[in-house]
């Protein structure tokens, strides 16, 4: 904790001094202290817009989770579903989902729904793939244990496969939640009248670079908060998850 903080401080110090020494205009690259001032002056605005983006990202992530986990279960449980949809899923992954954003906006409007949808679209893939990998990766011996004890398919899933996959699901969620923020901001870029993405565009248009950097800072904090939330859940489950990650 101390070393990264020191690193960050050194970086900011170089930035501050560099901008001064090289005489770079604040409209091009504002020094950190100016950005800090802007954050301070616009704290209320950043909080309001940040709250919008946070909700869009979080709802998008949750939607991806609620849809993605059952789809992964389906793919893993049924050979037919697997053969029919898994290649399709991988294929659609090569499609840049950013390109879908304008279309989603046409369908769902410029309100929150479209941002949630785009965030979910982006977060969906890692959740499905990691959950499927976790469910598939359940140790053959544990499955044999379930079989020798005459566990039903459902019991095997609930008591063996799902707990064994949980570390993978959480790993996928950590990636997904940061992607959800990106998805939400893209949605705001394409069309919106609130959120940090929108604030960033507005500040840019006004050449208020300090404000743009302030919005960027808020976005970074938001991403970290969401990541930390998932990592926190993972940490809480650590004794429960045990060594399964390596097994």
């Amino acid at each position, binding site marked *: 904790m101390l070393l990264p903080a020191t690193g960050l401080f050194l970086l900011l110090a170089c930035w501050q001094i560099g901008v001064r020494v090289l005489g770079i205009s604040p409209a091009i690259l504002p020094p950190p202290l100016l950005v800090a001032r802007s954050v301070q002056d616009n704290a209320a605005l950043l909080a309001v817009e940040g709250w919008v983006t946070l909700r869009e990202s979080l709802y998008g992530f949750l939607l991806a989770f609620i849809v993605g986990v059952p789809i992964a279960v389906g793919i893993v449980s049924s050979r037919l579903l697997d053969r029919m949809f898994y290649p399709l899923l991988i294929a659609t992954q090569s499609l840049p989902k950013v390109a879908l954003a304008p279309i989603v906006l046409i369908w769902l409007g410029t309100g929150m729904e479209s941002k949630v949808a785009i965030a979910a679209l982006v977060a969906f893939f890692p959740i499905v793939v990691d959950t499927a990998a976790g469910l598939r990766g359940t*140790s053959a011996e544990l499955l044999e244990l379930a079989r020798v004890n005459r566990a039903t398919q459902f*019991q095997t899933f609930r008591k063996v496969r799902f*707990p064994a996959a949980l570390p993978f699901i959480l790993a996928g969620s950590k990636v997904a939640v940061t992607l959800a923020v990106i998805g939400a901001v893209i949605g705001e870029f394409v069309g919106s009248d609130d959120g940090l993405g929108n604030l960033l565009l507005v500040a840019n248009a006004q050449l208020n670079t300090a404000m743009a950097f302030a919005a960027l800072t808020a976005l970074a904090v938001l991403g970290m908060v969401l990541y930390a939330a998932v990592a926190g859940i993972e940490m809480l489950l650590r004794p429960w998850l045990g060594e399964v990650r390596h097994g």
Partner: protein
Amino acid sequence: MSAAIASATTAAEPFARILGVGKSFGEPRGRFQTIALQAVEYDIAQGELVALLGPSGCGKTTLLNIIAGLTTASVGHVEIRGRRVTGPAEDVGFVFQTPNLMPWRTVLANVMFPMEILGRAGPAAKARARDLLAMVGLSAFVDQRPMALSGGMKQRVALCRALIHEPSMLLMDEPFGALDELTRMEMHDLLLDIRRMSATTVVFVTHSISEAVYLADDILVFSARPGRITQRIRVTLPYPRSAATRYSAAFTQLERQAGTALGVVHPDA
């Protein structure tokens, strides 16, 4: 009188029968076909410990899995108490080569797993699980995760899990193979203790000659692929068996006999 005869024949009836069991993997007569087992015929007596002894890859695990109903035989079949095995049976306990514990469950919850599946995970079962864990000396670890245990302790948990539903037959696949020698000898005595307290019939897979002699009533020596019984050795060492047993002349004699059957001891050496 007819009742007396009936009960006498029941007593003589083997607990389980392996009837002409053969197993091949891969396409029949295909290029990559492996004949794992061939014409295995044997009656397992009630309450005895049968050791399946043979080199690695001779089909011991395959035979154990067929008895457990985890694998189907290509030819022949297995009967337990006169009933043909078609799938895993409720009153069988299985101990794997690795402890095979669920790392996310506590020791107690791991032992309770079979009872949960049977829908009998009540307080009585919990009490029994605690008793079993106390018997194997793990009372202090009941609420720990497997991660905190040594290899020998984990295998003791696995043993408790296999015994929790009071199975009439215990199937063990090289259960102590991964343990160090001292721990393994402790586990041997633990298994002998368990057998003294319950009349469980045991099928025990091993590739250790001394382990087979120390534990078994009957040793089936298997040949390398295709696996078949080349010799049956009756172990008449008296119970209780202890460290002293390992140094008796009879023990050495049986080891030599099994070694000869396996081809690792030259007959006239």
